């Protein structure tokens, strides 16, 4: 299988789906001639024309609202937020109109909003956020957070075919840094199935997105240092999320660390911890630990941002304490 970057995998998945299904179109700021801020749609307008790769005005509600309307009329819109942070500008439309429409009225809204998210490169408070936790509380939306190139492509195709509004969070810090094998052609990665990124037996780490790699490096450190065996589950999708896989792993390890890049209070890690505290209480041998960013905006300056985003060392220490509890 060919090696591809995470970015290339997303771009390929989208292009292939547009070739297969002429109902799929792309809308966003600067997605056309410019190919998008991160060049995911580079060359798309030349191939598909200006009405299937549509440069929108600087207006996120117009963009996502257009997805609602166009999906209702039978198309399969894929919107791009220039940065995930700007999805706050379409919050009302998403939670009020899109999320509640099928439950209230039976109308299906098959569209995708791609959200380049995450920090790690001094993007500052408005170009680094991970908004998935905010949307996880809103019934009616599906949330996807791939960490590998293979999943990035398979989950994007699955997102486009899903009959619901799907927010697809692509982590910017993985775009060109992460390469992996990506199958050619058509395949889908199902929602709601966690991936065992690393099997283990002592401690379960549940995470997603860029933190999968942080967890993995921490696990490698620990394996080498004292043989602690860490099982890493990559959730891949946040809504729906794979409770069974988490509960199974906890049944095996009796110790749970939840790790995410977003801030702690009210983050999705709380939901995972609360669920396990309710459903696997008897299996737990130690407190459930959450590692997340502190409750502040994402700071710009490297020393601050490093202190903000969970680091390998933070995870190593937390796992050690947990293993020793």
């Amino acid at each position: 299988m060919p090696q591809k970057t995470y970015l290339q995998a997303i771009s390929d998945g989208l292009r292939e789906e547009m070739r297969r299904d002429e109902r799929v179109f792309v809308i966003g700021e600067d997605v056309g001639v410019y190919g998008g801020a991160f060049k995911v749609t580079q060359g798309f307008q030349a191939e598909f024309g200006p009405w299937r790769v549509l440069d929108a005005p600087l207006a996120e509600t117009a963009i996502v609202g257009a997805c609602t309307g166009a999906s209702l009329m039978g198309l399969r819109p894929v919107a791009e937020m220039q940065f995930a942070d700007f999805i706050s500008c379409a919050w009302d439309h998403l939670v009020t109109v899109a999320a509640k429409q099928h439950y209230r009225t039976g109308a299906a809204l098959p569209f995708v909003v791609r959200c380049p998210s995450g920090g790690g490169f001094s993007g500052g408070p408005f170009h680094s956020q991970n908004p998935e936790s905010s949307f996880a509380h809103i019934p009616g939306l599906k949330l996807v957070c791939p960490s590998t190139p293979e999943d990035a492509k398979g989950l994007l195709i699955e997102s486009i075919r899903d009959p619901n509004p799907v927010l697809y969070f692509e982590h910017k810090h993985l775009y060109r840094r992460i390469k992996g094998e990506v199958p050619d052609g058509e395949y889908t990665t199902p929602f709601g199935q966690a991936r065992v990124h690393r099997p283990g037996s002592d401690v379960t780490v549940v995470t997603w997105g860029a933190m999968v790699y942080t967890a993995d490096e921490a696990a490698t450190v620990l394996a080498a240092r004292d043989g602690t065996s860490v099982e890493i589950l990559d959730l891949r999708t946040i809504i729906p999320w794979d409770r069974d896989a988490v509960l199974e792993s906890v049944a095996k390890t009796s110790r749970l660390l939840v790790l995410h890049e977003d801030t702690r209070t009210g983050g999705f890690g709380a939901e995972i911890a609360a669920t396990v505290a309710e459903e696997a209480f008897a299996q737990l041998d130690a407190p459930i630990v959450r590692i997340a960013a502190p409750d502040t905006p994402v700071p710009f300056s490297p020393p601050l941002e490093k202190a903000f985003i969970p680091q390998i060392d933070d995870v190593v220490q937390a796992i050690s304490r947990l293993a020793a509890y």
Partner: protein
Amino acid sequence: MAIAREAAPAGSLEEVRAGGLDRVDLVELYRLMLLTRGIEERGHILFRQGKVPGSFYTGRGNEAAAVGVGYALGSDDVGAPIQRDMGVHVARGTEPWRIFAQYMGRADGFTRGRDGNVHMADLQLGLIPMVSHLPAMVPVAVGCALAFRIRGQQRVAVGWSGDGATSRSDWHEALNFAGVRRLPVVFVVDNNQFAYSTPNHLEFATARIADRAHAYGFEGVVVDGTDVVSVFREAHAAIERARGGGGPTLLELVTLRGEGHAVHDDASYVPRALHDAWGRLDPIERYRAWLKEHLAGFDDDADAQVREDVKALLADALRRAEASPQPDPATLMDGVYADPEDLDTPHHR
């Protein structure tokens, strides 16, 4: 400085006929307006009987505005009407008994008891159910128009808002995008001069809302919303212009909200003189008088016949609605997410 065009009032029968309304249409418009008001009046009675949960809103005074536009839509066109637009649903052929079931939160209402009031639509008729947040459906109408443009279909979308709702973000983003791309969409503003208690002059600072069309690169037209014939004429012209690739139009339909914002509101903030002046412009009375004057053969008997038919229809609809069951609490969790089969509809193919 005025920018919008002021539409002419209803003219002679010849003019009206040339505009596409024959005798049958003219009587049908009347019937639809009666039906609209009848539905809301009976809904209000149901509310007072304690059969309608929550609150209750009507579009009294807006019957001509709603029916006139609804009747101008082509069969494949779509629309997203709002809280005063029962007439759009009625003109489109929505079954009255299901509207009553909707009011009462029954299983046969369009939202199966999950939403109330006029937060509903029969999707099969090309209507899109509104949400409370105003004017959130206007960007959706634009999205429908975008789909038509992408697919090269000769279809038009209509997006409604109130006068107050034009102050909000969504309205601007939607009109701007539609103007830039010259999409086949018509924007209708039901200007009933108040947003809850807030009068026009505290909502916007132009002479007319329709003046704003210019800011989006298309034409604005001010229409007397109590005159069903001129509403139809202007709506029809705008819709056909959009269909022909001429881009959007903004239609401002001026009325006065005939009742309080909702049943609990006595609207005492509406100046009495204003209320009285517009009371004389009841769209149904007005149209009846016009018909009697212009349409040969439309006499008291003909009028009585239409009213009887409407009455019978409504009585039957009420009976049917009252027989509709309450929604089953066991279904509470169903359908938060759509299944793939939900895409197997005419719209989604």
